[in-house]
């Protein structure tokens, strides 16, 4: 199976504060990986390093078989950041304008949005049931609606790798269920590889087929079934927590 993301001996620190220590793992095409860990365990930093937003102190990262430093096919990756870092609240962009930004990674200079692109945006909006919000200002929407707009932006290119950072924080229960159903559909029917960051490890088992648990270093990486049968993990998490995660699965 093709490795979509490969990380070897990755180390990163902010000044003297060590954030990631000797992190090694690889994600295969079609994986749905739940990336868990407590606040400050290095989850978001790890994803930002994979996306080339932060340079590591040492280690090797390859994406789609290419060394990250030489990687250029950004349209293969969709990224949904944490809601708090999404946008400036006074920014006067419409839903359509925001989602169309997701298409520009495919374009060459001078980047332009065509009529065909407009249809692609409409399809993405329709998939997320927000086509009626197309001409609304993004700042006028609720948190859940904004989250769906940014998911549409991440999906509009039909990425092969989708990275989501705590995506369900601002969603109500119904929207959250729809959201996770959509991710399941993308993973199972379209083969989209998904990395889902969450601190809510209890729910990871509901959706992902693999778990990557971080505490600066990789505590566990493997299939949920391996996690559930692991005595080492029972010792680490305690029987009840392990049971809760596995029961959800």
């Amino acid at each position: 199976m093709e490795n979509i993301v490969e990380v070897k001996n990755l180390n990163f620190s902010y000044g003297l504060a060590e954030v990631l220590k000797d992190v090694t793992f690889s994600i295969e095409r079609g994986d749905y990986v739940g990336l868990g860990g407590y606040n400050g365990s290095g989850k978001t930093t790890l994803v930002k390093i994979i996306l080339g937003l932060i340079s590591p102190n040492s280690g090797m990262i390859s994406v789609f078989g290419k060394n990250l430093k030489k990687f250029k096919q950004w349209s293969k990756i969709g990224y949904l950041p944490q809601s708090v870092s999404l946008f400036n609240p006074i920014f006067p962009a419409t839903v359509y304008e925001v989602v169309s930004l997701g298409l520009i990674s495919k374009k060459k200079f001078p980047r332009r949005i065509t009529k065909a692109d407009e249809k692609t945006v409409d399809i993405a909006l329709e998939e997320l049931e927000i086509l009626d919000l197309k001409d609304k200002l993004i700042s006028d929407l609720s948190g859940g609606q904004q989250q769906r707009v940014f998911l549409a932006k991440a999906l509009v290119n039909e990425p092969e790798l989708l990275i989501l950072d705590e995506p369900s924080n601002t969603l109500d229960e119904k929207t959250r269920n729809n959201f996770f159903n959509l991710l399941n559909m993308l993973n199972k029917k379209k083969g989209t590889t998904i990395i889902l960051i969450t601190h809510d490890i209890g729910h990871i088992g509901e959706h992902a087929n693999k778990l990557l648990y971080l505490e600066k270093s990789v505590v566990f990486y493997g299939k949920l079934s391996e996690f559930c049968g692991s005595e080492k993990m029972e010792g680490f998490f305690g029987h009840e927590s392990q049971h809760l995660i596995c029961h959800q699965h």
Partner: protein
Amino acid sequence: MNISFLEFISYSFIQRAFISGIFVGVLCSILGLFLVLRKLSMIGDGLSHVSFGAIAMGLFFGVYPIYFAIPIVILSSIFIVKLTEKAKIYGDTAIGVVSSVGLAGGVLLASISHGFNVSLLSYLFGNILAISISETYLSIALSLFVLVAVYFLYYELFAVTFNEEQANVTGIKSDKINLLLVILTAITVVLSIRVVGIMLVSSFFILPAVTALQLSKGFKSAIFVSAFVAILSVIAGICASFYLNLPAGASIVIVNFILFLLSFLWRKSM
């Protein structure tokens, strides 16, 4: 003043004022929108202070001050970006550092020379009605250059302004776009000095943009509204200045402010 509008616009100095004012106004208003949304609106103010020093140097060495100011202000704008990146200080602090050095340099040169204080004062407040034909051509040429750059890099500028981190993930080099934005701003600041003066340059960047933010229903529409407000302010400001015998630059700024106030009240009433 008792002359008809047709007679008024037949004067060549008025035509030059309209043409230069509209080109520079549109330019400032479009770049201003990007700067305001990136919380960099005071960069216009900071670079105008640098222009003061650069113009003083030009006068000191007997070189046409605008030609002298353009490279110096561009270098200062790059210095602001590099200072923010390398010295790990906030953008507004870097602007403060560079602008105070520019201002201090200008005051020192004016003090040493004793001879060009009157010329320097004319740059402080600008005079769009005294703009020469060569300055009009320069305004048009540089405005077109900046507008073409904005047109071709619209999506890069939009993406980086909306969210720098997300722009990077789409393969855009946001550091290069940031650098380009401040260089274009530097050119525009120098161009605006003859129109509105060093003291009021930043208002040309900020006021049309904040008016557009009250009225717009999208980013593209905000750009057009911002440009329209700038054109309206330049036309109304020059007319008011001529008929009411007021300083042109200040009149344009006050019209701009009135439009902002009206747009704000309109939005509140919605």
